[in-house]
């Protein structure tokens, strides 16, 4: 039979019906022979039930009459065009922010590279500084941010393509 230490982290998932069948079998087998683990599991269940009852009792005391009407009134007060087009834009931004940032960054880098390449004072021969050192754009993972490095003969520019991911949401 498995040790309690191996079983304890799986008691909750078993209770939640989230344990694969093969794990569920040996955890259930352990439970049959271990009263301490049965108590531990009962405690998880009792705690959940107490939390449910406590919040249900509290929210049941809240008066929700008129709630829907207040929501609908607020919805109606919002200009249609203002509520849809910008939201679509925001939604798109939040849904695809990484890809849009990356695309924007690469586009900006490409434009800069093109601008340098087509600049009027570009040397005619191949011996100019750009001929041997043509602009390079590389997508780089900086760890917490994505960015592109644009390398020109005289300078190196980093173009950020995403927000700092340092703070998890």
């Amino acid at each position, binding site marked *: 039979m498995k*040790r309690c230490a191996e079983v304890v982290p799986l008691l909750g998932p078993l209770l939640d019906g989230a344990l694969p069948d093969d794990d569920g079998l040996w955890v259930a087998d352990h439970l049959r022979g271990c009263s301490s683990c049965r108590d531990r599991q009962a405690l998880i269940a009792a705690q959940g039930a107490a939390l449910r009852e406590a919040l249900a009792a509290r929210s049941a005391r809240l008066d929700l009459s008129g709630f829907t009407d207040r929501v609908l009134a607020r919805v109606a007060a919002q200009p249609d065009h203002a509520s849809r087009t910008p939201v679509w834009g925001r939604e798109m931004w939040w849904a695809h922010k990484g890809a849009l940032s990356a695309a924007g960054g690469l586009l900006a880098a490409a434009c800069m590279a093109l601008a340098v390449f087509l600049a009027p004072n570009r040397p005619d021969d191949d011996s100019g500084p750009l001929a041997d050192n043509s602009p390079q754009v590389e997508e780089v993972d900086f760890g917490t941010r994505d960015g592109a490095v644009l390398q020109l003969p005289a300078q190196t520019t980093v173009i950020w393509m995403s927000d700092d991911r340092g703070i998890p949401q």
Partner: protein
Amino acid sequence: MSEGPKEAGDDRALVKAAQRGDGQAFRKLVERYQRRVVQLALGMTRDPDEAMDIAQETFVRVHRYLPSFKGDSSFFTWTYRIAMNLSLDAQRRRARSERVELEEGDEAEIEAAMDPPSAALAGPQRQALNSELRGRMEEALATLSENHRSILLLREVEGLSYEELSKVLGIRKGTVMSRLFHARLKMQKQLREYLGEDAPEKSDPEEGE
């Protein structure tokens, strides 16, 4: 309390109608989920007025974003996600202290979980004790970090599956399991403190073999 197939099917029909501009369909969706959203916000904030504001704002945003809702997740999962984000935003605005938490691998906590539940918290006495526990539940919940509080509410109160928790909270299923484990332990620890229990003696780790 996760939705059943019939409720999900009804939701889909209502969502489609609401997306076409059917106000009655949207009203039905609000009426169907208003109390559950208020309850979720109440668990997060403990403030009834703030919970009502958050719930109201949730449905305003649901309406606003509805045209772009493609149904990749269920309507209620999507709605809970909005409500949870608004609750977290509200809390951050109030600059409540946040706690750094360990997502996994906290050996000390796993060891603490080996403590056998006392007679007061488990066993046949637990039913009688539930009324006292209930009185302490919200208090104990408020001491948890945002991450622990939100996952406990969504699982224990709203009955979301691990898959749904993963979607609403934007975390991997493995993290769901780990975070829920630690959240439950911290809640137990709080309740033991409220009940004036000292840390119980460690059980024999070989027990049950």
